[in-house]
């Protein structure tokens, strides 16, 4: 019996890889297994190799694995590209149609199943994904009725006949492979899961769900990978809550529409990735200058320019921290799990209104699109805080205006919404006085700059840094952000077996940088290694600039488009602890 295994399906884009993965993982979720998915895809719709990998475990997991147990292949290319991941004794389930062969040097068991032929027998080659998944499900020895239930849900709305045919396809695939293998494979027999169905979603869905819980009722956005799922989720849900999604002509319109709507009192967000974020820069400054709340989700992908649009990267840090001309207060938050995506979205909307600043919620492609099991989300933790939003203010005299930018001790001024009788004021991106009227007065300028920039003094989000520090003076302090946390933890358990002590800190508040809470951990570690998916060590630079310790901070960088594997992190950490040198992955 084993506690975890990895399954992968590969084929041409548009060939059913996605739907096979969906049904397979839904069925596993029904049984109560923890799942962690990874999508390898390209910037095209039909054709080109694509694969989905699922890690299945009886315990919570937050990382992809180095190796692979079962590979389901629709074509030889899928075998050629992925077989090297198979562990010794791994299994390939492939379509007999293309006479599959195992590449030289790979030791694996091959089951050639007439996948296409069986599907065609049943009327359409479309059903080959059902034959293939039935076969691989059967090898795991998992109950077929649970799988059939998932099939029913997937095809139910297409009618009973379609469901029946698909279930028959599953059955034929299962029977064929069981006969070849002589029954389910013992080495793949998973421990029984707890039977508790988990929430199973991608980060983008958690953000969409979080935004509804936060009271976001409008979204203005332009489609882009890997952000579009957020708008696609919200356009299905927001009308039920009186709101909507507007697909704008570009990201500049998206962000400025969001600014207008926030100004008029509706929690509104936009979401994009690097190219869209670049287009939003001027407007981010407008939000900062006019102290208009704003939430932007930036789902990072490979840059620069169009870069690697469907690949993992964490290289927009500098753009998010420094972006826009001039100087404004801004918050950048990096959720590190699906649960974070949900709760941080709610917090982003609160912070945007409490501090009247733009908030950027940053994810990376793996966090946004990797489907994972998620802990229960707690309704009782949903709090809506609107800061100094005021109503029913006293009437104005003569030509007086409401002091929307009143100089206050904490720099945050009362905010009224258009429509309020006593609240008339002006809003402008030009430097302005307390009523919002343009002013070039030097003293006013200084006061207003100090007011705005001082708003975030000592501002900390929930878990600004997330600390797992079992050691007072560890050999290594490993620092990461975003989706890398689970991978780092798996590497740490390998390090622990080798008696190398390590602490782990996830930086969740990227800006303003949480220097104060981080300092003691940096001080007490012998060596520090910062793990990030970019080429220049942007997070490490933030740490060095804000907290110092440049002499003991090393970087492990990966920018080939793929997420870190536990082995990458383990190897680098081990090298660093042994001889103080690390190689780039």
């Amino acid at each position, binding site marked *: 019996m084993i506690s975890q295994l990895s399954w992968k399906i590969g084929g041409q884009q548009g060939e059913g890889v996605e739907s096979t993965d969906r049904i397979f993982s839904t069925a596993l979720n029904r049984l109560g297994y923890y799942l962690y998915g990874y999508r390898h895809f390209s910037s095209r719709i039909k054709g080109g190799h694509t694969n989905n990998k699922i890690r299945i475990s009886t315990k919570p997991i937050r990382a992809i694995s180095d190796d692979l147990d079962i590979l389901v292949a629709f074509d030889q290319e899928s075998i050629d590209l992925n077989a090297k991941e198979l562990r010794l004794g791994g299994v390939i389930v492939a379509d007999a149609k293309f006479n599959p062969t195992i590449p030289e040097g790979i030791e694996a068991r091959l089951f050639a199943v007439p996948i296409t032929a069986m599907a065609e027998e049943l009327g359409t080659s479309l059903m080959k994904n059902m034959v293939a998944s039935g076969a691989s499900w059967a090898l795991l020895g998992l109950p077929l009725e649970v799988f059939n239930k998932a099939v029913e849900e997937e095809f139910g709305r297409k009618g009973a006949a379609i469901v029946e045919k698909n279930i028959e396809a599953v059955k034929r695939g299962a029977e064929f492979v069981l006969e070849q293998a002589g029954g389910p494979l013992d080495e793949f027999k998973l421990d029984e899961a707890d039977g508790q169905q988990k929430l199973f979603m991608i980060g983008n869905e958690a953000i969409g769900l979080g935004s509804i819980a936060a009271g976001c009722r409008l979204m203005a956005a332009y489609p882009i990978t890997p952000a579009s799922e957020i708008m696609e989720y919200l356009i299905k849900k927001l009308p039920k809550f*009186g709101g*909507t999604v507007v697909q704008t*002509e570009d990201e*500049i*319109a998206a962000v400025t529409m969001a600014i207008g709507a926030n100004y008029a*009192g509706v929690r509104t967000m936009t979401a994009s990735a690097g190219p869209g974020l670049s287009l939003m820069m001027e407007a981010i400054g407008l939000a900062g200058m006019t102290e208009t709340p704003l939430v932007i989700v930036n789902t990072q992908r490979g840059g620069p320019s169009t870069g690697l649009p469907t690949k993992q990267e964490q290289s927009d840090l500098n753009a998010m921290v420094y972006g826009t001309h001039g100087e404004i207060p801004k918050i950048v938050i990096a959720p590190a799990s699906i649960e974070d995506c949900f709760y941080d979205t709610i917090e982003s909307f609160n912070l945007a209104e409490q501090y009247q600043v733009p908030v950027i919620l940053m994810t990376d492609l793996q966090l946004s699109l990797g489907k994972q099991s998620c802990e229960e989300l707690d309704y009782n933790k949903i709090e809506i805080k609107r800061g100094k939003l005021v109503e029913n203010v006293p009437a104005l005299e003569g030509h007086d205006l409401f002091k929307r930018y009143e100089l206050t001790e904490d720099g945050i001024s009362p905010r009224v*919404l258009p429509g309020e009788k006593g*609240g008339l004021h*002006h809003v402008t991106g030009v430097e302005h006085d307390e009523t919002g*009227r343009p002013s070039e007065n030097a003293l006013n300028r200084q006061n207003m700059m100090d007011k705005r920039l001082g708003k975030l003094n000592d501002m900390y989000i929930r878990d600004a840094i997330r600390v797992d520090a079992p050691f007072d003076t560890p050999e290594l302090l490993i620092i990461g952000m975003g989706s890398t946390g689970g991978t780092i933890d798996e590497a740490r358990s390998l390090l622990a077996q080798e008696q190398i002590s390590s602490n782990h800190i996830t930086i969740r508040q990227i800006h303003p940088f949480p220097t104060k809470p981080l300092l003691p951990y940096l001080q007490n570690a012998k060596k520090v290694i910062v793990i990030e998916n970019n080429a220049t060590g942007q997070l490490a630079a933030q740490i060095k600039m804000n907290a110092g310790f440049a002499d003991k901070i090393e970087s492990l960088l990966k920018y080939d488009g793929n997420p870190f594997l536990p082995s990458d992190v383990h190897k680098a950490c081990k090298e660093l602890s042994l001889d103080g040198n690390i190689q780039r992955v």
Partner: protein
Amino acid sequence: MATFKEFRNNVKPNWCPGCGDFSIQAAIQRAAANVGLEPEQLAVISGIGCSGRISGYINAYGFHGIHGRVLPIAQGVKLANRELTVIASGGDGDGFAIGMGHTVHAIRRNLNVTYIVMDNQIYGLTKGQTSPRSAEGFKTKSTPEGSIESTLSPLEIALSAGATFIAQSFSSDLKQLTRLIEEGINHEGFSLINVFSPCVTFNKINTYDWFKENIVNLEQFPDYDPSNRVQAMNKIMETNGMLTGLIYQNKTRKSYEDLVTGFKPEGLSKQNIKITPEEFEKLVAEFK
């Protein structure tokens, strides 16, 4: 009920004496009073340029945004609170150069926003460069040998983009301009009102006298039917765009707000935003 005086404030505009923008400001104030608005029910959103300052000169809610983005901001305001009357305003550079993409799509979207373009055929605040509205051959600091690009016809573009309300006026004709702004505000959908607003400092060609000589008032054509799209396009082309009055209005197409599924007549900003435990459970259950 508010009079136009209540839409005035004590800010002295920084426009040059004689600038056409003064009359547009007055016309907006009069129209707002004439349609029965109170200052707090009006939001004036403006772009960047001389004309962009207008949101600070009207006693109402004013938002002076960034160059070229007046329309997305105005549409955001309207989506958030459809009970507000939203006037967007900016210059020809703002709306037809840097912001042209937004103009076309705001027209297509057809939110109930009134867009007043203060069209002086030149860049004023940057001290005299060519605009998409400048005539071919027009000499400016950036086109010392005369503009070699064709002049943009916003009326033709608006009509082909599916506009439901197109009007044009001249800042000297306060009466017509006020009436057209009132009609624009009352129109259920997006209204484009292009206003010839002479720049007395940098544009020595398109002067008040020049406009008076060259424009044709649609009132001269008693048979003109503004609901006829083909006739409207013909008239724009016949007059080379130098016509004033209500050029086109489609009263049958619904506004964006009326077409959005689930959108209520009450302003979205006034609605409760906390979801119930039952609603939450239902949303979460979809992920199991």
